[in-house]
């Protein structure tokens, strides 16, 4: 039986889809079989990030309506044979699916795949309820901004109310230089409020945007980068391995900054 993990945030545009695409790809790269479910009905773009848009024929809706079999709707990744995508319908709204139907789909996928990752839409309405219905685990994605953290907190509360117990946090788009200048919330600032275990931190990196636009997840790029390493570490932690948190400060470190940190921590 595969694990069902929902990737959610509350606030929009913080990197849920980016994380889903990259974590799915990275898991497939280390040999796991992975199904990605796009739960963002009406605003799907997981297929775009994976560069699979032109292969989508059927969506979850046709499966639910009995117009095709589940296997037919799954889009196989062109690079990773063990990665498939169940696309969301583009032309219907979020209310066209129910939580029970989402469960049905996700449970069917767990029979064949080690991981079922669900890309949740922003907000806490029906689309959110659908996305979390089947999940046993949740990954909260937030950026180090007050509003994103506030929404993340709200979502964690809702997950608790819905008995999703295993909730972990990714802090995305950290800019170490800004944190050091006290212009951005630090990892511990965020953690202090959310108080859920940290799954990983990802620096703000324009390579992420470039890869998004290319439809090629960053974890597949040849080039080494901190953000790629960050995503790979997250996958290791998902697999239950202990990996130290990245030191995002390293490339920016100056003696002065180090001294300042030293005195601050006193």
């Amino acid at each position, binding site marked *: 039986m595969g694990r069902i993990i929902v990737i959610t945030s509350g606030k929009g545009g913080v990197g849920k889809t980016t994380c889903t695409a990259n974590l799915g790809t990275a898991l497939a790269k280390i040999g796991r079989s992975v199904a990605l479910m796009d739960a963002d009905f009406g605003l799907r773009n997981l297929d775009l990030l994976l560069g699979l848009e032109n292969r989508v024929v059927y969506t979850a809706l046709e499966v639910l309506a009995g117009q095709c079999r589940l296997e037919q709707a799954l889009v196989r990744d062109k690079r990773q044979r063990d990665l498939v995508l169940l696309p969301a319908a583009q032309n219907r709204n979020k209310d066209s699916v129910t939580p029970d139907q989402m469960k049905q789909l996700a449970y069917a996928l767990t029979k064949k795949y080690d991981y079922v990752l669900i890309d949740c839409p922003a907000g806490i309405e029906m689309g959110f309820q659908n996305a979390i219905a089947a999940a046993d685990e949740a990954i909260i994605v937030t950026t180090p901004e007050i509003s994103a953290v*506030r929404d993340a*907190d*709200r979502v964690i*509360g809702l997950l*608790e*109310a*819905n*008995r999703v117990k295993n909730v972990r946090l990714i802090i995305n788009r950290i800019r170490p230089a800004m944190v050091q200048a006290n212009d951005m919330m630090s990892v511990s600032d965020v953690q202090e*409020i959310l108080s859920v275990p940290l799954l990983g931190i990802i620096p703000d990196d324009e390579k992420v945007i470039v890869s998004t636009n290319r439809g090629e997840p960053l974890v597949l790029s040849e080039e080494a980068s901190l953000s790629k390493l960050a995503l790979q570490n997250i996958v290791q932690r998902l697999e239950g391995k202990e990996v130290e948190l990245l030191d995002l400060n390293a490339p920016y470190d100056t003696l002065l900054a180090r001294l300042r940190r030293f005195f601050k921590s006193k």
Partner: protein
Amino acid sequence: MQSNRASEASLSETNLPETSLTGISLPEGEPSEVGLSEAELVQVELAQVELAQVELAEISISEPERSHLKQATPQQATSQSSAALLGIQSGRLPGVQQAGLSPALLASPAERAAQGGHIFFKAEKGVLYLYLPSNQTAVEWSVIWEQLQHRLEASQRIWPPQTPVYLVANDRLLDQRQLDQLAVALSNAHLILRRVLTSRRQTAIAAVTSGYSVDQQLPTLGLPAIASPAASRVAALTSPELVLAEPLYLETTLRSGGEVRHPGSVVVVGDTNPGSAIIADGDILVWGRLRGVAHAGAQGDRDRQIMALQMEPTQLRIADQVARAPAKPPNQVYPEVAYTTPEGIQIMRAADFAKQYSKQSGK
């Protein structure tokens, strides 16, 4: 608390003249006025006018740094109190009435909860009564559901396993699916749904179909069952004190969007995060960080206090007073108490407050 409940119970057995209750049919949507005689209504209105004038005269004051007060000894703090509000911006809350004036005073805790749109638990003789918000509050099922989940989670250790639950649904329409959801949620918390009390035919049918015992409530009474409204109303009239529910004890982190309302005091063992709110008719005690909104004495009782190990609230409210925390959080943290003075809400170190309070009150 014990004594309150005892008096409520004994009153309900007395035969009371029900003149103000029977024969008056009131417009829907104004349940809080049910049973008030016309003379009483006029009194309430007059009193509110006076209050409104007082409100106008009050100006919010901005203050010296909170740290001053923190260092002040209790005596100094008292002498300063006319000027200083501990770095807090304080003011008056429109719409909240002072003690003794609120029509809601006349309702029992369960009624206040139902009219306030939140769920309410009450344990009595080995049975746990779960009150649902009145239909008139237009609170959606999903909201009730969320409240219930959080409450069950946070109160896990309080109710013994296998405690039977009587659901007091009142005028709320419940279908079978919702009843089953409730039963599952309760059984996850090791509680058993046994009986459904409802004034709605459809809910009764759904409950019977799902196999629960059903008590039909009289629709006109709104909230009968345990303490009849007439009895609790007279209890409130005869004693000037608000009848408080037993304190609500929650072991949880109260997160953004989470709101706890309780017709008594609230104890939270855990943090309350920005974006959360506790609204209590009694005191509020947070054994952790208080960062959200806290409103004590929400029915207008100014003698209520808000206590926290770490006081960093978005906003504090006691009765009709409001205070905003200083922009800068303090450097040191120690337990603090917020209380009211004629000038507004003040905060004091808990250690100092304890000294002063025991000296002054002598009660």
